[in-house]
């Protein structure tokens, strides 16, 4: 029997086994699909979060809040001083009046809070855009620290600090996702191994006849390996389908929401989907190999 003939025989027998034992096969396929879908969901979320972080990083600024009642001339002088640093793209001086107007425009329902007060409630500030927001050279750190210590400054708000924290959160999400998916994949391998072992047990009479008439181990085990592989491939495909369904549902149900824009702005790429399906196939094959150790056939 040629290798191609053998492969055709393996997959035909595997399909027959899958159809005949569809209930246990479905269990194996669903287990692997759920584990891969969970892993894929974490991948999707972390991927979209990272994309959001990158987008925010491009828009990131350092805001230097000045002491209340800083004279306008001092504000302009400080803005000029800030603009002299080499990593600064631009500096915009925001007067207390402009700050109040912005607040009222951004939060119309809260505009009463800042209306009718004698003095301007918000301090003047300097909004500093950086040339290369992704980089955090030590000089920039020192420059920001220098501003924090100045008597004219009440507070410095550096966007990069919370973006850094967000990156840590993304890394944690990814790590938890990987660990969870790994654990679930282990469970899926165990399930597939059990299903294959059950199938092999149901075929033990036929296996003994095959041995008796002179079938090789390759010929006897091949259909079971193919069965595990098919279960894994189908499970991986189902996981990809589940993820796409969840992604589409989220975009349809809440098209403009913050959650959608952060978590579901882009679906997984072809390579990532292929990886999920291949992981499923690998898990199926490992399950079959584990179940067909010599003593169990």
């Amino acid at each position, binding site marked *: *029997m040629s290798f191609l*003939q*053998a492969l055709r025989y393996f997959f035909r027998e595997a399909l027959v086994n899958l159809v005949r034992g569809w209930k246990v096969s479905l269990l194996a396929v669903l287990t692997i699909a759920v584990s891969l879908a969970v892993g894929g969901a974490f991948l999707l979320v972390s991927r979209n979060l990272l994309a959001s972080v990158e987008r925010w990083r491009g828009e990131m600024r350092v805001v230097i809040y000045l002491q209340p009642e800083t004279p306008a001339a001092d504000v302009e002088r400080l803005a000029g001083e800030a603009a002299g640093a080499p990593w600064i793209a631009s500096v915009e001086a925001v007067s207390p009046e402009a700050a109040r107007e912005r607040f009222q425009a951004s939060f119309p329902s809260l505009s009463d809070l800042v209306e009718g007060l004698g003095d301007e409630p918000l301090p003047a500030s300097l909004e500093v855009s950086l040339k290369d927001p992704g980089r955090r050279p030590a000089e920039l750190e020192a420059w920001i620290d220098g501003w924090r210590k100045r008597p004219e400054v009440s507070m410095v708000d550096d966007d990069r600090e919370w973006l850094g924290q967000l990156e840590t959160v993304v890394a944690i999400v990814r790590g938890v996702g990987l660990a969870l998916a790994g654990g679930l994949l282990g469970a899926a391998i165990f399930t597939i191994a059990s299903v294959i072992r059950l199938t092999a047990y149901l075929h033990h009479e036929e296996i003994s006849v095959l041995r008796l*008439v*002179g*079938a*090789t181990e390759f010929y006897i085990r091949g259909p079971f390996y193919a069965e595990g592989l098919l279960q894994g491939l189908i499970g991986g495909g189902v996981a990809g389908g589940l993820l796409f369904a969840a992604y589409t549902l989220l975009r349809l149900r809440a098209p403009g929401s913050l959650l959608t824009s952060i978590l579901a702005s882009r679906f997984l790429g072809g390579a990532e989907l292929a990886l999920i399906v291949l992981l499923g196939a690998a898990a199926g094959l490992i399950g079959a190999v584990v179940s067909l150790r010599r003593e169990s056939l």
Partner: protein
Amino acid sequence: MIQFFQVSKRFPGGQTALDRVSFEIARGQFVFLTGPSGAGKTSLLRLIFREDVPSEGKILVNGRNVSSIPPSKIPYLRRTIGVVFQDFRLIARKTVFENVAYLPRILGVDLKSQKKLAYQALRRVGLAHRLNAFPPELSGGEQQRVAIARALINEPDILIADEPTGNLDPDLSWEILRLFLEVNLRGTTVLLATHDRDMIQRVGRRVITLEAGRLASDQELEGTDPPSIDPVPAELEREAESERTAAPAEEEKPADEEPG
């Protein structure tokens, strides 16, 4: 063809199944292997087709030391030996054709040729008309004949039978025995284990007797009422010849070269 040299088989618990057994069976012989239950008949047969290995001694089958055959080569040995059991070992959910055609399928023979070979093997045992039946639809005697057809499909050098009539009534047993004698007439070496002394007495032939794992006797018996087996008819000979020539290329290769 089959040679045992001081062969012993002991199980891990210390029980001795065979104790320094030596004999030789020449090509084309018909030999009864007999003895009481537990004498070691089944253990001896299992050693021939490498289902088990001896604890001591050497077994040659077709000049090859079966104990030293690596596990990956065992299937090629088994393709030269047909084996029939008392319990038939047919797969109930497979048709008679599928049960008989296991070996051609393993060898990669195309479906049409598989059917032809299965038909020819079943014709030899008188069951060509039951090609599409399932084993549970057959009588015990018919099931055993299907098992014999499966063992014969590749024209094995040796046919081993372990109590093949143990589950059958006397008439059916006689019918099955006649089949083995016919197979032997066509040149296949037959080793048939049975504890049916009456059958042996009637048929005669060479009888190897085991007792408690030892070779108690090895003698030629004159049968008191041997069945009249016609010499191989010319038609059957021609058919056998056409089977050999019509078989696909894969069938004609030495079994050792088959990857399946």
